[in-house]
Protein backbone atom coordinates (compact mmCIF):
# COMPACT_ATOMS: atom_id res chain seq x y z
CA UNK A 1 0.00 0.00 0.00
CA UNK A 2 1.11 3.57 -0.50
CA UNK A 3 2.23 5.15 2.73
CA UNK A 4 2.87 8.62 1.41
CA UNK A 5 1.09 11.13 3.60
CA UNK A 6 0.16 13.41 0.71
CA UNK A 7 -1.40 10.57 -1.28
CA UNK A 8 -3.21 9.23 1.76
CA UNK A 9 -4.49 12.69 2.59
CA UNK A 10 -5.71 13.29 -0.95
CA UNK A 11 -7.42 9.89 -1.09
CA UNK A 12 -8.85 10.34 2.39
CA UNK A 13 -10.37 13.67 1.39
CA UNK A 14 -11.93 12.11 -1.69
CA UNK A 15 -13.34 9.27 0.39
CA UNK A 16 -14.69 11.67 3.00
CA UNK A 17 -16.19 13.94 0.34
CA UNK A 18 -18.09 11.01 -1.19
CA UNK A 19 -20.27 11.00 1.91
CA UNK A 20 -21.29 14.64 1.49
CA UNK A 21 -24.88 14.78 0.22
CA UNK A 22 -26.18 17.11 -2.46
CA UNK A 23 -27.59 20.04 -0.49
CA UNK A 24 -30.90 21.63 -1.41
CA UNK A 25 -32.62 24.85 -0.46
CA UNK A 26 -29.47 26.34 1.06
CA UNK A 27 -30.13 29.91 -0.06
CA UNK A 28 -33.71 29.87 1.19
CA UNK A 29 -32.62 28.41 4.53
CA UNK A 30 -29.97 31.09 4.88
CA UNK A 31 -32.46 33.82 3.96
CA UNK A 32 -34.93 32.52 6.56
CA UNK A 33 -32.19 32.30 9.19
CA UNK A 34 -31.10 35.85 8.43
CA UNK A 35 -34.68 37.10 8.69
CA UNK A 36 -35.16 35.35 12.05
CA UNK A 37 -31.91 36.76 13.35
CA UNK A 38 -32.96 40.27 12.40
CA UNK A 39 -36.35 39.84 14.08
CA UNK A 40 -34.76 38.41 17.21
CA UNK A 41 -32.30 41.29 17.45
CA UNK A 42 -35.12 43.79 17.02
CA UNK A 43 -37.26 42.06 19.65
CA UNK A 44 -34.34 41.81 22.03
CA UNK A 45 -33.61 45.49 21.65
CA UNK A 46 -37.24 46.33 22.38
CA UNK A 47 -37.97 44.00 25.26
CA UNK A 48 -34.71 42.63 26.63
CA UNK A 49 -33.04 39.31 26.02
CA UNK A 50 -34.60 37.47 28.96
CA UNK A 51 -38.08 38.15 27.71
CA UNK A 52 -37.13 36.93 24.25
CA UNK A 53 -35.73 33.71 25.67
CA UNK A 54 -38.89 33.09 27.66
CA UNK A 55 -41.01 33.83 24.61
CA UNK A 56 -39.00 31.33 22.59
CA UNK A 57 -39.66 28.60 25.13
CA UNK A 58 -43.34 29.49 25.33
CA UNK A 59 -43.67 29.65 21.57
CA UNK A 60 -42.11 26.24 21.34
CA UNK A 61 -44.47 24.72 23.86
CA UNK A 62 -47.70 26.62 23.42
CA UNK A 63 -47.62 27.78 27.03
CA UNK A 64 -49.11 31.09 28.16
CA UNK A 65 -47.38 32.07 31.35
CA UNK A 66 -44.20 34.09 31.69
CA UNK A 67 -41.22 33.61 33.93
CA UNK A 68 -37.86 31.88 34.22
CA UNK A 69 -37.15 28.38 35.48
CA UNK A 70 -40.74 27.68 36.52
CA UNK A 71 -41.82 28.31 32.94
CA UNK A 72 -39.14 26.00 31.67
CA UNK A 73 -40.21 23.25 34.05
CA UNK A 74 -43.84 23.61 32.93
CA UNK A 75 -42.78 23.70 29.29
CA UNK A 76 -40.71 20.56 29.75
CA UNK A 77 -43.54 18.72 31.50
CA UNK A 78 -45.96 19.69 28.76
CA UNK A 79 -43.68 18.71 25.86
CA UNK A 80 -42.56 15.49 27.52
CA UNK A 81 -46.14 14.36 28.07
CA UNK A 82 -46.96 15.08 24.43
CA UNK A 83 -43.88 13.26 23.15
CA UNK A 84 -44.63 10.27 25.38
CA UNK A 85 -48.20 10.10 24.09
CA UNK A 86 -47.18 10.56 20.46
CA UNK A 87 -44.63 7.74 20.67
CA UNK A 88 -47.03 5.44 22.48
CA UNK A 89 -49.83 6.05 19.99
CA UNK A 90 -47.84 5.92 16.75
CA UNK A 91 -48.19 2.96 14.42
CA UNK A 92 -45.74 4.22 11.85
CA UNK A 93 -42.52 2.93 10.41
CA UNK A 94 -39.48 4.79 11.71
CA UNK A 95 -36.56 5.50 9.41
CA UNK A 96 -33.44 7.05 10.90
CA UNK A 97 -30.38 8.11 8.94
CA UNK A 98 -27.21 8.83 10.85
CA UNK A 99 -24.24 10.83 9.66
CA UNK A 100 -21.09 11.27 11.61
CA UNK A 101 -17.53 12.34 11.07
CA UNK A 102 -16.41 9.31 13.03
CA UNK A 103 -18.20 6.31 11.61
CA UNK A 104 -19.84 5.35 8.34
CA UNK A 105 -23.34 6.52 7.45
CA UNK A 106 -26.06 4.25 8.78
CA UNK A 107 -29.78 3.72 8.41
CA UNK A 108 -32.21 2.37 11.00
CA UNK A 109 -35.73 1.07 10.34
CA UNK A 110 -38.17 0.05 13.08
CA UNK A 111 -41.75 -1.07 13.23
CA UNK A 112 -43.11 -2.59 16.42
CA UNK A 113 -40.70 -5.28 17.50
CA UNK A 114 -39.02 -5.39 14.09
CA UNK A 115 -35.91 -3.37 13.49
CA UNK A 116 -32.94 -3.18 11.18
CA UNK A 117 -29.75 -1.18 11.62
CA UNK A 118 -27.37 -1.06 8.67
CA UNK A 119 -24.04 0.69 8.48
CA UNK A 120 -22.47 1.57 5.15
CA UNK A 121 -18.92 2.27 4.12
CA UNK A 122 -17.97 5.70 2.84
CA UNK A 123 -18.55 4.53 -0.72
CA UNK A 124 -22.06 3.33 0.11
CA UNK A 125 -21.39 -0.40 0.30
CA UNK A 126 -23.15 -2.35 3.10
CA UNK A 127 -20.81 -2.94 6.00
CA UNK A 128 -22.80 -4.51 8.84
CA UNK A 129 -26.46 -5.07 9.69
CA UNK A 130 -27.99 -5.75 13.09
CA UNK A 131 -31.64 -6.34 13.91
CA UNK A 132 -34.44 -8.84 13.53
CA UNK A 133 -34.91 -11.35 10.73
CA UNK A 134 -37.65 -13.89 10.07
CA UNK A 135 -36.02 -17.28 10.53
CA UNK A 136 -38.36 -20.25 10.42
CA UNK A 137 -41.26 -17.83 10.68
CA UNK A 138 -39.96 -16.45 13.98
CA UNK A 139 -38.49 -13.01 14.68
CA UNK A 140 -34.86 -13.59 15.59
CA UNK A 141 -32.04 -11.17 16.38
CA UNK A 142 -29.23 -11.43 13.81
CA UNK A 143 -25.86 -9.84 13.09
CA UNK A 144 -24.60 -9.74 9.48
CA UNK A 145 -21.13 -8.71 8.34
CA UNK A 146 -21.00 -7.98 4.62
CA UNK A 147 -17.26 -7.59 4.31
CA UNK A 148 -16.67 -11.29 5.08
CA UNK A 149 -20.13 -12.62 4.13
CA UNK A 150 -21.03 -14.09 7.53
CA UNK A 151 -24.01 -13.93 9.85
CA UNK A 152 -24.93 -15.17 13.32
CA UNK A 153 -27.86 -15.21 15.69
CA UNK A 154 -27.59 -12.33 18.13
CA UNK A 155 -27.86 -13.35 21.77
CA UNK A 156 -30.48 -11.56 23.82
CA UNK A 157 -28.83 -8.67 25.57
CA UNK A 158 -29.98 -6.63 28.49
CA UNK A 159 -30.27 -3.27 26.75
CA UNK A 160 -30.97 -0.26 28.96
CA UNK A 161 -34.66 0.62 28.95
CA UNK A 162 -33.96 4.33 28.75
CA UNK A 163 -31.13 6.85 28.67
CA UNK A 164 -31.74 7.72 32.30
CA UNK A 165 -29.01 5.40 33.46
CA UNK A 166 -25.41 6.26 32.74
CA UNK A 167 -24.98 3.46 30.24
CA UNK A 168 -28.27 4.43 28.63
CA UNK A 169 -27.06 7.96 28.01
CA UNK A 170 -24.07 6.62 26.16
CA UNK A 171 -26.47 4.96 23.71
CA UNK A 172 -27.92 8.36 22.84
CA UNK A 173 -24.62 9.73 21.61
CA UNK A 174 -24.38 7.37 18.64
CA UNK A 175 -26.71 6.30 15.85
CA UNK A 176 -30.23 5.14 16.71
CA UNK A 177 -29.37 2.02 18.66
CA UNK A 178 -29.83 -1.32 16.93
CA UNK A 179 -31.65 -4.36 18.27
CA UNK A 180 -34.07 -2.52 20.46
CA UNK A 181 -37.42 -0.79 20.39
CA UNK A 182 -36.02 2.67 19.84
CA UNK A 183 -39.33 4.61 20.11
CA UNK A 184 -39.93 2.99 23.52
CA UNK A 185 -36.38 3.83 24.56
CA UNK A 186 -36.87 7.49 23.64
CA UNK A 187 -40.27 7.57 25.34
CA UNK A 188 -38.76 6.27 28.59
CA UNK A 189 -35.85 8.66 28.26
CA UNK A 190 -37.84 11.87 28.00
CA UNK A 191 -40.14 10.70 30.79
CA UNK A 192 -37.50 10.11 33.45
CA UNK A 193 -36.68 13.73 34.15
CA UNK A 194 -33.24 13.81 32.57
CA UNK A 195 -34.29 16.19 29.78
CA UNK A 196 -35.26 19.84 29.54
CA UNK A 197 -36.97 21.83 26.81
CA UNK A 198 -34.37 24.34 25.69
CA UNK A 199 -36.11 26.25 22.91
CA UNK A 200 -36.52 25.43 19.28
CA UNK A 201 -34.56 24.94 16.08
CA UNK A 202 -35.39 24.96 12.38
CA UNK A 203 -34.96 21.58 10.73
CA UNK A 204 -36.06 21.04 7.15
CA UNK A 205 -38.24 24.16 7.23
CA UNK A 206 -40.04 23.07 10.42
CA UNK A 207 -39.65 24.89 13.72
CA UNK A 208 -38.94 21.95 16.02
CA UNK A 209 -38.92 21.82 19.81
CA UNK A 210 -35.47 21.16 21.22
CA UNK A 211 -35.12 18.81 24.19
CA UNK A 212 -31.69 18.59 25.78
CA UNK A 213 -30.58 15.70 27.97
CA UNK A 214 -28.52 16.20 31.09
CA UNK A 215 -24.86 15.59 30.26
CA UNK A 216 -23.42 12.49 31.87
CA UNK A 217 -19.80 11.87 32.83
CA UNK A 218 -18.83 8.23 33.12
CA UNK A 219 -15.63 6.74 34.45
CA UNK A 220 -14.56 4.16 31.88
CA UNK A 221 -14.15 0.57 32.96
CA UNK A 222 -10.52 -0.58 33.22
CA UNK A 223 -10.85 -2.51 29.94
CA UNK A 224 -12.34 0.42 28.06
CA UNK A 225 -9.82 2.80 29.59
CA UNK A 226 -6.97 0.62 28.36
CA UNK A 227 -8.46 0.43 24.88
CA UNK A 228 -8.84 4.16 24.38
CA UNK A 229 -6.07 5.37 26.71
CA UNK A 230 -8.53 7.69 28.45
CA UNK A 231 -10.23 7.70 31.84
CA UNK A 232 -13.48 9.58 31.39
CA UNK A 233 -16.30 9.78 28.91
CA UNK A 234 -18.72 12.69 28.76
CA UNK A 235 -21.91 12.29 26.72
CA UNK A 236 -24.53 14.77 25.62
CA UNK A 237 -27.66 14.41 23.53
CA UNK A 238 -30.34 16.63 22.05
CA UNK A 239 -33.67 15.53 20.62
CA UNK A 240 -35.76 17.64 18.24
CA UNK A 241 -39.49 16.95 17.99
CA UNK A 242 -42.11 18.11 15.52
CA UNK A 243 -44.31 20.72 17.29
CA UNK A 244 -47.48 19.35 15.68
CA UNK A 245 -47.05 15.59 15.96
CA UNK A 246 -44.51 15.64 18.82
CA UNK A 247 -42.65 12.80 17.14
CA UNK A 248 -38.84 13.03 17.07
CA UNK A 249 -37.33 14.33 13.84
CA UNK A 250 -33.65 14.47 14.82
CA UNK A 251 -31.34 13.15 17.50
CA UNK A 252 -27.84 14.51 17.90
CA UNK A 253 -25.31 13.24 20.38
CA UNK A 254 -21.67 13.53 21.26
CA UNK A 255 -19.03 11.67 23.21
CA UNK A 256 -15.91 13.22 24.64
CA UNK A 257 -13.17 11.04 26.12
CA UNK A 258 -10.39 12.57 28.17
CA UNK A 259 -8.14 12.27 31.18
CA UNK A 260 -5.65 9.71 29.85
CA UNK A 261 -2.26 9.72 28.21
CA UNK A 262 -3.78 10.12 24.73
CA UNK A 263 -5.13 13.46 23.50
CA UNK A 264 -8.82 13.91 24.24
CA UNK A 265 -11.26 12.81 21.55
CA UNK A 266 -14.61 14.26 20.51
CA UNK A 267 -17.09 12.40 18.31
CA UNK A 268 -20.59 13.31 17.21
CA UNK A 269 -23.50 11.75 15.38
CA UNK A 270 -26.73 13.14 13.96
CA UNK A 271 -29.71 10.93 13.20
CA UNK A 272 -32.47 12.37 11.03
CA UNK A 273 -35.76 10.60 11.62
CA UNK A 274 -38.79 10.19 9.39
CA UNK A 275 -42.09 8.51 10.22
CA UNK A 276 -43.57 6.63 7.28
CA UNK A 277 -46.90 4.98 6.59
CA UNK A 278 -46.92 1.26 7.48
CA UNK A 279 -47.12 -0.01 3.93
CA UNK A 280 -45.98 -3.55 3.21
CA UNK A 281 -42.86 -2.21 1.52
CA UNK A 282 -41.94 0.00 4.47
CA UNK A 283 -42.59 -2.74 7.03
CA UNK A 284 -40.41 -5.12 5.03
CA UNK A 285 -37.53 -2.68 5.37
CA UNK A 286 -37.65 -3.13 9.14
CA UNK A 287 -36.38 -6.70 8.74
CA UNK A 288 -32.82 -7.83 8.09
CA UNK A 289 -32.48 -10.05 5.03
CA UNK A 290 -29.57 -12.45 5.02
CA UNK A 291 -28.11 -12.45 1.50
CA UNK A 292 -27.80 -15.84 -0.19
CA UNK A 293 -24.40 -17.48 0.16
CA UNK A 294 -23.56 -15.86 3.50
CA UNK A 295 -22.04 -18.32 5.98
CA UNK A 296 -23.76 -18.93 9.31
CA UNK A 297 -21.31 -18.80 12.23
CA UNK A 298 -21.86 -19.68 15.88
CA UNK A 299 -21.68 -16.21 17.44
CA UNK A 300 -20.93 -12.58 16.60
CA UNK A 301 -17.51 -13.10 18.16
CA UNK A 302 -16.68 -15.46 15.27
CA UNK A 303 -17.28 -12.68 12.78
Amino acid at each position, binding site marked *: *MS*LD*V*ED*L*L*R*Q*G*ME*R*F*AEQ*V*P*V*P*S*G*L*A*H*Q*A*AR*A*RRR*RRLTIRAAAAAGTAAVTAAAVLAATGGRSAGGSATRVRATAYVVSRVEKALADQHLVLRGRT*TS*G*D*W*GPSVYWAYGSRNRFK*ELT*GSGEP*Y*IAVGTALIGGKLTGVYVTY*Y*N*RKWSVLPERAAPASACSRTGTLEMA*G*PAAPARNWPAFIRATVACGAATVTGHAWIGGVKTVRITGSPVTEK*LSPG*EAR*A*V*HEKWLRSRWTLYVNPHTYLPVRL*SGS*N*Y*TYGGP*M*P*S*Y*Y*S*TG*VTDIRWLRPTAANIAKALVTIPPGFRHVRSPAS*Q
Partner: protein
Amino acid sequence: MAAQDQRVENLEQFLARRGQALLRTAALLTGSIQAGEDLLQAAIERLLRQRGRVDGDPEGYLRRTLCNLATDEFRRQSRWRRKLHLLQAEAPTSADTTAEVDLRDAMVRLLGQLPAQQRTVLVLRYWEQLNGPETAELLGCSEYAVKSAASRGLRRLRELAGGLLSDETQPHDITARTGDGS
Protein backbone atom coordinates in the same frame (compact mmCIF):
# COMPACT_ATOMS: atom_id res chain seq x y z
CA MET B 1 -38.86 42.31 -1.03
CA ALA B 2 -39.36 41.01 -4.58
CA ALA B 3 -35.80 41.99 -5.47
CA GLN B 4 -34.53 40.16 -2.40
CA ASP B 5 -36.54 37.06 -3.35
CA GLN B 6 -35.11 37.18 -6.84
CA ARG B 7 -31.59 37.39 -5.42
CA VAL B 8 -32.27 34.35 -3.23
CA GLU B 9 -33.68 32.53 -6.24
CA ASN B 10 -30.58 33.32 -8.32
CA LEU B 11 -28.37 32.17 -5.49
CA GLU B 12 -30.39 28.95 -5.18
CA GLN B 13 -29.77 28.25 -8.86
CA PHE B 14 -26.08 28.84 -8.42
CA LEU B 15 -26.00 26.54 -5.37
CA ALA B 16 -27.85 23.82 -7.28
CA ARG B 17 -24.78 23.72 -9.53
CA ARG B 18 -21.99 24.40 -7.07
CA GLY B 19 -23.50 23.71 -3.65
CA GLN B 20 -22.16 20.21 -3.25
CA ALA B 21 -18.61 21.22 -4.14
CA LEU B 22 -18.77 24.06 -1.63
CA LEU B 23 -20.29 21.78 1.00
CA ARG B 24 -17.50 19.26 0.49
CA THR B 25 -14.91 21.95 1.08
CA ALA B 26 -16.81 23.19 4.13
CA ALA B 27 -17.07 19.65 5.53
CA LEU B 28 -13.33 19.10 5.07
CA LEU B 29 -12.55 22.42 6.71
CA THR B 30 -14.69 21.61 9.74
CA GLY B 31 -14.20 17.84 9.94
CA SER B 32 -17.87 16.83 9.75
CA ILE B 33 -20.75 17.10 7.31
CA GLN B 34 -23.04 18.62 9.92
CA ALA B 35 -20.57 21.33 10.87
CA GLY B 36 -19.86 21.87 7.18
CA GLU B 37 -23.54 22.54 6.51
CA ASP B 38 -23.62 25.06 9.35
CA LEU B 39 -20.48 26.73 8.04
CA LEU B 40 -21.81 26.96 4.50
CA GLN B 41 -25.12 28.36 5.70
CA ALA B 42 -23.27 31.03 7.71
CA ALA B 43 -21.25 31.94 4.62
CA ILE B 44 -24.40 32.20 2.51
CA GLU B 45 -26.00 34.44 5.14
CA ARG B 46 -22.99 36.74 4.86
CA LEU B 47 -23.28 36.69 1.11
CA LEU B 48 -26.93 37.71 1.30
CA ARG B 49 -25.84 40.77 3.23
CA GLN B 50 -23.53 41.71 0.36
CA ARG B 51 -26.25 42.47 -2.14
CA GLY B 52 -24.04 43.37 -5.08
CA ARG B 53 -22.05 40.16 -4.96
CA VAL B 54 -25.01 37.82 -5.28
CA ASP B 55 -25.73 39.01 -8.79
CA GLY B 56 -22.16 38.41 -9.96
CA ASP B 57 -20.15 35.23 -9.45
CA PRO B 58 -20.46 34.44 -5.76
CA GLU B 59 -18.20 31.39 -5.65
CA GLY B 60 -14.97 33.19 -4.86
CA TYR B 61 -16.61 35.18 -2.08
CA LEU B 62 -18.20 32.06 -0.58
CA ARG B 63 -14.95 30.12 -0.71
CA ARG B 64 -13.02 32.91 0.99
CA THR B 65 -15.73 33.30 3.63
CA LEU B 66 -15.73 29.56 4.31
CA CYS B 67 -11.99 29.66 4.98
CA ASN B 68 -12.22 32.72 7.21
CA LEU B 69 -15.19 31.42 9.20
CA ALA B 70 -13.56 28.01 9.60
CA THR B 71 -10.44 29.66 11.00
CA ASP B 72 -12.51 31.72 13.44
CA GLU B 73 -14.43 28.66 14.54
CA PHE B 74 -11.23 26.69 15.06
CA ARG B 75 -9.84 29.44 17.22
CA ARG B 76 -12.99 29.47 19.33
CA GLN B 77 -13.06 25.73 19.74
CA SER B 78 -9.33 25.17 19.96
CA ARG B 79 -9.52 23.92 23.51
CA TRP B 80 -10.99 20.57 22.55
CA ARG B 81 -10.53 20.50 18.82
CA ARG B 82 -6.82 20.84 18.94
CA LYS B 83 -6.21 17.19 19.18
CA LEU B 84 -7.79 13.94 18.13
CA HIS B 85 -6.52 10.49 18.78
CA LEU B 86 -6.74 7.54 16.51
CA LEU B 87 -8.16 4.97 18.85
CA GLN B 88 -11.86 4.70 19.28
CA ALA B 89 -13.79 3.04 22.07
CA GLU B 90 -16.11 1.06 19.83
CA ALA B 91 -14.17 -0.52 17.02
CA PRO B 92 -17.08 -1.89 14.99
CA THR B 93 -18.61 1.47 14.27
CA SER B 94 -15.64 3.04 12.55
CA ALA B 95 -13.83 0.24 10.84
CA ASP B 96 -13.59 -0.50 7.17
CA THR B 97 -12.41 -3.46 5.24
CA THR B 98 -8.78 -2.62 4.68
CA ALA B 99 -6.01 -0.99 6.62
CA GLU B 100 -5.31 1.33 3.71
CA VAL B 101 -8.84 2.66 3.73
CA ASP B 102 -8.53 3.20 7.44
CA LEU B 103 -5.30 5.11 7.00
CA ARG B 104 -7.01 7.45 4.58
CA ASP B 105 -9.83 8.03 7.03
CA ALA B 106 -7.31 8.58 9.80
CA MET B 107 -5.59 11.27 7.74
CA VAL B 108 -8.78 13.28 7.46
CA ARG B 109 -9.41 12.92 11.19
CA LEU B 110 -5.86 13.99 11.94
CA LEU B 111 -6.42 17.19 10.00
CA GLY B 112 -8.51 18.28 12.98
CA GLN B 113 -5.41 18.37 15.13
CA LEU B 114 -3.67 20.93 12.96
CA PRO B 115 -3.85 24.66 13.61
CA ALA B 116 -6.52 26.41 11.56
CA GLN B 117 -4.28 27.93 8.93
CA GLN B 118 -2.34 24.73 8.26
CA ARG B 119 -5.55 22.77 7.89
CA THR B 120 -7.09 25.36 5.57
CA VAL B 121 -3.99 25.46 3.38
CA LEU B 122 -3.92 21.66 3.08
CA VAL B 123 -7.61 21.51 2.17
CA LEU B 124 -7.13 24.20 -0.49
CA ARG B 125 -4.05 22.46 -1.86
CA TYR B 126 -5.11 18.82 -1.83
CA TRP B 127 -8.86 19.15 -2.22
CA GLU B 128 -9.36 22.40 -4.12
CA GLN B 129 -6.14 21.82 -6.11
CA LEU B 130 -5.12 25.46 -5.71
CA ASN B 131 -1.47 26.36 -6.18
CA GLY B 132 0.55 28.59 -3.87
CA PRO B 133 -0.26 31.99 -5.40
CA GLU B 134 -3.97 31.14 -5.69
CA THR B 135 -4.12 30.01 -2.07
CA ALA B 136 -2.26 33.12 -0.93
CA GLU B 137 -4.69 35.35 -2.80
CA LEU B 138 -7.72 33.55 -1.39
CA LEU B 139 -6.45 33.72 2.19
CA GLY B 140 -5.04 37.22 1.88
CA CYS B 141 -1.54 36.22 2.96
CA SER B 142 1.90 35.84 1.37
CA GLU B 143 2.91 32.90 -0.74
CA TYR B 144 5.69 32.21 1.72
CA ALA B 145 3.15 31.92 4.53
CA VAL B 146 1.18 29.40 2.46
CA LYS B 147 4.25 27.28 1.71
CA SER B 148 5.32 27.40 5.30
CA ALA B 149 1.87 26.40 6.58
CA ALA B 150 1.64 23.52 4.09
CA SER B 151 5.07 22.26 4.97
CA ARG B 152 4.50 22.46 8.70
CA GLY B 153 1.05 20.89 8.34
CA LEU B 154 2.38 17.90 6.40
CA ARG B 155 5.24 17.46 8.82
CA ARG B 156 2.82 17.48 11.73
CA LEU B 157 0.54 15.00 9.97
CA ARG B 158 3.49 12.65 9.49
CA GLU B 159 4.32 12.93 13.16
CA LEU B 160 0.74 12.30 14.23
CA ALA B 161 0.34 9.36 11.86
CA GLY B 162 3.75 7.97 12.69
CA GLY B 163 2.46 4.90 14.52
CA LEU B 164 0.19 3.93 11.68
CA LEU B 165 2.62 4.56 8.86
CA SER B 166 5.52 2.75 10.44
CA ASP B 167 3.69 -0.49 11.11
CA GLU B 168 2.34 -1.68 7.83
CA THR B 169 1.99 -5.32 8.79
CA GLN B 170 0.12 -4.69 12.02
CA PRO B 171 -3.13 -2.91 11.22
CA HIS B 172 -4.34 -0.52 13.82
CA ASP B 173 -6.91 -1.69 16.35
CA ILE B 174 -9.77 -0.11 14.50
CA THR B 175 -9.27 -2.42 11.52
CA ALA B 176 -8.38 -5.50 13.48
CA ARG B 177 -11.88 -6.92 13.13
CA THR B 178 -11.45 -7.24 9.38
CA GLY B 179 -8.34 -9.34 9.60
CA ASP B 180 -9.96 -12.70 10.26
CA GLY B 181 -8.61 -14.23 7.13
CA SER B 182 -11.96 -15.09 5.61
